[in-house]
């Protein structure tokens, strides 16, 4: 049923919120180890909900979700040993950094994951110091989150996940609200993480991100279904598809800059 290197597999997964609002409809996908997948779609199409299912924070009402070859249900996560092993392997960056930063200082935030997941205090310290050093954040370690800029808060949220040293990184709209310099820094971080043969799943509507990062792209329609899957070139060249899912309008085009850099935008 699974290849050796399948990390996540979804079979006919559907999800409705308690208000009966549909968020996902009959989703099928398979994410392999070391792959960088992008979930592409307009706002409200269900990308964030899917990421929450992949992180076992919510569970589908219909269909089956497998992670690391195991069927994921609330009962499976109730097993403490499996809960901790799953949490150690998967890290989730929330769209709003503020909800992820619930500790009083940057240092405490970065230490939270390793500490909860059972590392001893000297290993926690070592991980925190190393992560802060790698992200060049040592000077911010005693700051509370409300005294950080938006970009710094995003970096803190990423540091809080990287200190867990996960195998899989789930990123919900990672570049939203960031200035171009911080966006570039973040993209480089994702690339570095991916180079270590780690799996990354990104939800976004940023086409530049798709072009630069994606191995595989899943396109969501506004009725919460995956209507296309392909490489970044295949998807970005399919203007009709992108118009259909309301991501672009008819004025959309791409520019090729010196050094083969492409960017995508729209104007009349």
């Amino acid at each position, binding site marked *: 049923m699974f290849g050796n290197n399948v990390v996540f597999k979804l079979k006919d997964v559907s999800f409705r919120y308690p208000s009966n609002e549909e968020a996902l409809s009959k989703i099928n996908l398979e994410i392999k180890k070391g792959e960088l997948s992008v979930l592409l779609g307009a706002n409200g199409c269900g990308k964030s909900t899917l990421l929450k299912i992949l992180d076992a924070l919510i569970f589908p009402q219909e269909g089956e979700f497998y992670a690391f070859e195991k069927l994921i249900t609330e009962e499976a996560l109730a097993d403490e040993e499996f809960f901790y092993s799953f949490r150690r392997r998967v890290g989730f960056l929330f769209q*709003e950094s*503020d909800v992820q930063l619930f500790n009083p200082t940057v240092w405490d935030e970065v230490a939270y994951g390793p500490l*909860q997941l059972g590392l001893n205090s000297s290993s926690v310290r070592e991980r925190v110091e190393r992560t802060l050093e790698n992200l060049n954040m040592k000077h911010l370690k005693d700051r509370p989150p409300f005294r950080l800029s938006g970009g710094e808060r995003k970096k803190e949220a990423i540091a809080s996940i990287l200190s867990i040293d996960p195998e899989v990184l789930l990123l919900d709209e990672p570049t939203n609200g960031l200035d171009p310099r911080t966006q570039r820094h973040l993209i480089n971080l994702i690339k570095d993480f991916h180079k270590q043969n780690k799996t990354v799943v990104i939800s976004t509507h940023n086409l530049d991100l798709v072009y630069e990062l994606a191995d595989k792209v899943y396109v969501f329609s506004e009725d919460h279904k995956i209507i296309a899957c392909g490489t970044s070139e295949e998807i970005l060249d399919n203007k009709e598809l992108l118009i259909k899912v309301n991501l672009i309008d008819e004025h959309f085009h791409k520019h090729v800059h010196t050094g083969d850099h492409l960017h995508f935008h729209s104007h009349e």
Partner: protein
Amino acid sequence: MCQKSLKFKLKKSKKPTFLEKTINELNNVIKEEFIAGKIASRHGLLQNLDPRINIIATLLLIITANFIHQPLVLLFFNFWIIWLAKVSLVPIRSFLKRVWLIVPLFTVVMVIPTIFSPFLPGEPLLILFQLSHPIQILFWQIPPIISITKQGVMAAVVLVLRVGICVSLSLLLTLTTKWSQLLKALNKIGIPTVFITILEMAHRYIYLLLQTTVDMFIAKKSRTVGQTTTGEQRQFISNSMSILLGKTYFISNEVYSAMTSRGYNGKALTLAEFKLKLFDWLWLGFIIIVCLFFIGGDYLFVWK
């Protein structure tokens, strides 16, 4: 005509509106937290102490203050705390303002009745008026001479000075210790982790919600032209409250998910290792001597 009415309106709008006043107040809360954080980072006397010693010393001093009966000793105690604030590089003016202009005001209101003879009989200092005969109201008898009594004034002064000491010491502790360190130290001296986690998160998200409220009020102000009626303002406040409640509910769900995602399974763990230095032990010894000194002074004045 039109210009005249415009002038009138502009003149009128110079007075800060309800929105402006609320924005300023919310900004002040955020500013004060910022200043408190800066003071806690200074290299003053109390900032260099282990937070646990700082908490224990504060508790010892508060207990001592409650044993003292002599106003002069209490007054001297208050001056000693001001010295403590000075050597801890706390701005004295704002420190005194916060302690003596706001908090004891409530205590003074509470203790005013005790200075009058019907509540605390004693040696009259100032006779206010005389009745022809005592008045009995159920079990309470109002004496014929209504006066301000020496005992009443002394009791009121002692209580206000004691409250002043307690508030000054608590304020000094929170100003000279970072909130995160203070909570960790409280955890180390026996306050349950769950309680500490709730306090930490409450402190964290109060500022987020304050910022959200400021943004909401500024957005409203930017779209308001001319005067709004009291009814409209009330409507805006109730709408803001419901939006904030909805936001709080959303944030609490998301925060719980974020905690779960990083391994929270009902048991919160904290990592705090404090190391006691020689200076901490010396300071604790000094505080015990200070406590004995004040109790001794009180003994000389009152108990003999």
